[in-house]
């Protein structure tokens, strides 16, 4: 076989390398913890028991993971078209508006399972709409999507604050938030999988959105690797010139992909808005849009990888909250440092160990062959 680059077996690329990256990230995090005078072992223990030790902890972990699956998928779809959608934050925020409008209007008259599909649709539509203008600017004017989407995050945030303070707020109330949705506008908690194992979900807001997220992961996989549109998206993303040669319209690809991406980001709002707080609040997205970038990077833009990476970040979020609660010396900012290290090693430096692994991997069998 003629091979220009030395290919590594899949289990090395998709199994060993991420684990190795993660191990290094944790190793350095451990050093940082030791540096501020705390025991790394204790920190790991608190982090892991906090995230995975109790039913409630797992519930929170998966609740956060749900957010990250949506935003991770959003970033990944855009990646496949060669676009860097940094606007997940704003698109999710606007998606919340779509979901809330449905929950406020239909939630009073319909049961949740009828409200839900409409809410999914509207969350996606609002998120997609927020991605449309940057997409159009990129496609027809060449304005860089990184710049425009990030600017739209700010516009989105300002717009939502305006709406919540002036339009959607309950008259007479102090908090800039909508009224609590009626039961038909809330997504029920997923308690039964926990009861199955005799665990208690407790206060954790783990809800039906997780299932929607998993369904979306499957749909994204189908879209990217099994449909004509996905083929066109990947062709445009990996070699735009070849895509034009093949008669794939670049502008349409950019716009369609960004609408899909924005839609996925918008759906993220279902989880916190309809699943957890049952009302629309300011800043409910809480950085999930940005974490989605790290999740997509770490998951190699593959839905399965994204689900795993999202759960990992769920663990970091939930465990990190516990950590800062139990070990006050490790503040919220320290948790951000640890998350940053994970992003650095698993995302940005994902192929750092590749050359060394390739050497190890190819030298061993050849040395063995030479001996034989």
């Amino acid at each position, binding site marked *: *076989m*003629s091979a220009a680059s030395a290919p590594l077996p899949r289990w090395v690329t998709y199994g060993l390398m991420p684990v190795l990256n993660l191990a290094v990230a944790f190793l350095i995090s451990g050093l940082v913890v030791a540096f501020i005078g705390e025991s790394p072992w204790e920190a790991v223990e608190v982090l892991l028991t906090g995230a995975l030790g109790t039913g409630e902890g797992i519930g929170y972990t998966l609740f956060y993971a749900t957010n990250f699956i949506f935003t991770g998928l959003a970033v990944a779809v855009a990646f496949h078209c060669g676009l860097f959608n940094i606007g997940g934050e704003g698109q999710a925020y606007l998606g919340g508006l779509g979901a809330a409008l449905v929950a406020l209007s239909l939630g009073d008259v319909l049961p949740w399972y009828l409200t839900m599909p409409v809410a999914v649709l509207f969350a996606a539509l609002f998120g997609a709409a927020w991605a449309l203008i940057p997409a159009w600017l990129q496609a027809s004017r060449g304005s860089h999507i990184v710049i425009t989407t990030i600017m739209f995050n700010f516009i989105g945030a300002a717009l939502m604050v305006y709406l919540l303070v002036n339009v959607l707020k309950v008259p007479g109330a102090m908090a800039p938030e909508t009224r609590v949705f009626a039961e038909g506008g809330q997504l029920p908690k997923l308690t039964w999988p926990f009861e199955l194992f005799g665990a208690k979900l407790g206060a954790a807001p783990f809800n039906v959105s997780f299932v929607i997220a998993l369904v979306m992961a499957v749909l994204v996989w189908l879209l990217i690797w*099994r449909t*004509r549109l996905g083929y066109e998206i990947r062709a445009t993303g990996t*070699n735009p010139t*070849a895509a034009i040669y093949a*008669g*794939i319209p670049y502008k349409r690809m950019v716009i369609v992909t960004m609408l899909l991406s924005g839609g996925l980001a918008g759906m993220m709002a279902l989880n916190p808005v309809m699943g957890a707080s049952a009302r629309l609040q300011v800043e409910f997205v809480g950085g999930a849009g940005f974490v989605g970038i790290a999740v997509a990077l770490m998951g190699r833009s593959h839905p399965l990888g994204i689900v795993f990476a999202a759960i990992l970040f769920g663990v970091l979020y939930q465990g990190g909250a516990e950590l800062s609660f139990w070990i006050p010396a490790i503040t919220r900012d320290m948790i951000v440092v640890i998350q940053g290290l994970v992003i650095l090693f698993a995302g940005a430096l994902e192929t750092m160990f590749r050359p060394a692994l390739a050497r190890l991997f190819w030298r061993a069998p050849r040395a063995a062959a030479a001996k034989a």
Partner: protein
Amino acid sequence: MNAPVRTVPDADAPAIELVGIDKSFGPVHANKDIHLTVRRGTIHGVIGENGAGKSTLMSILYGFYQADRGEIRVGGRPIVIKDSQAAIAAGIGMVHQHFMLVENFTVLENVMLGAEGGAFLKTGIAKARAELKRLETEYALDVDPDAVIETLPVGRQQRVEILKALYRGADILILDEPTGVLTPAEADHLFRILRVLRDQGKTVILITHKLREIMAITDAVSVMRRGEMVATRTTAETTVEELAELMVGRRVLLKVDKGPAKPGPVALSVRNLTVRDHRGVTMVDDVSFDVRAGEIVGIAGVAGNGQSELLEALAGIRKPASGDILIEGKSTLGADPAMLRRRGLAHVPEDRHHMGLVLKFEEYENSILGYHDDPRFVRGPFLDIEAIRADARDKIAKYDIRPPNPRLKTANFSGGNQQKIVLAREIERDPTVLIIGQPTRGVDIGAIEFIHRRIVEMRDAGKAILLVSVELDEIRALADRVIVMFAGRVVGEKTPEASEQTLGLMMAGIGP
């Protein structure tokens, strides 16, 4: 013709000796126990198919890679070349296939780059200017030191590269495929320069895949095949046929076997076509010609004279500024590449890496690029993966694409096999009009034979074929009519029997 190894390093020692050089990239054994001796003051050719390991070997010599095993001796003395600085210090200079020049710098500035000699430029400039003058007169390399690179024709840019190497004190000059971008006249001039260099005592290593150049200019030639050095010959004592056989490992038919064309009605018609590039510069200027069914029309010309833009306009990728293109009498203006495919146009692009293939895709995914809307390959919004893979396997068998694995990443196929993937895709659609750019660029001799045969078969099946190639030999071998382009215009039309000199002059823009 191995020169005897001397014990004392002296002026008679070979300029370069490679002893048992071995290099692997992962599972790919690029150089296997290579021995090569290059005598001082000679022009030594290194030939081999793509992927034979020539470039790897020269990269080791120039310090881009380290050999896993083996020794390099320069002037009889073993040395370690750990980077290009070390190579330069050892007197080895390299002229790359793609020039390494700063386009908006002057010749002088480019020559000095990396050897400025101090923090302040003034003294360095004066010294460099004097040195440049000396080199120019000594080696007949006339270039204006104050000309800006981007204003110079490629032939002169190449001379700047040679000057750069000489300025750094190179005694041994490696040239990697130097004639790929030159007109025949420029190539001749280059060869004259190389001879002067040799006569002045420099050693030249010429890497090429063009056998004719080897015969024309080298003193000795070494042949590589699949990472091994299979033979070294004195040029005067060998033949093109022998070298070709050594390169491929079997007898090769160098001439294309084809009968006379039987042209039918006009299938492709170009009328007063003008095409501008993205800067608004006119690249194709009022060009008109016809291609009939059952004939091959070749477009000869030095790269960059509008052929690429012409092809792109024909394929619907670039909108013409004015004029018309007709397929079977009907205008194609406003049609995008997908619509043109449906009207029976197939396009093998000049640059398969850039345009013809998505290298990160698996082979079968590339086998439908541009035809992914075909009902045979889709079911509703989904791709019919099984149907596509079955079709890809058929094409692999028919075109002998190796390795025969539709799941392999396209980047992992050799150049020749990649080209076959493109050709299979475009030809098997049974198009009315086939436009082909550089069908055998970077393709092994063995595959060239196969590709040429397929093109002639297409002609004999009554297809109208437009062939663009910078290889004049290829045009003359395949085409039934030759159109020469220069500076965006059609200079004239000739039969392929016209002499190389005539065509060469036309390619340089000097009258038909």
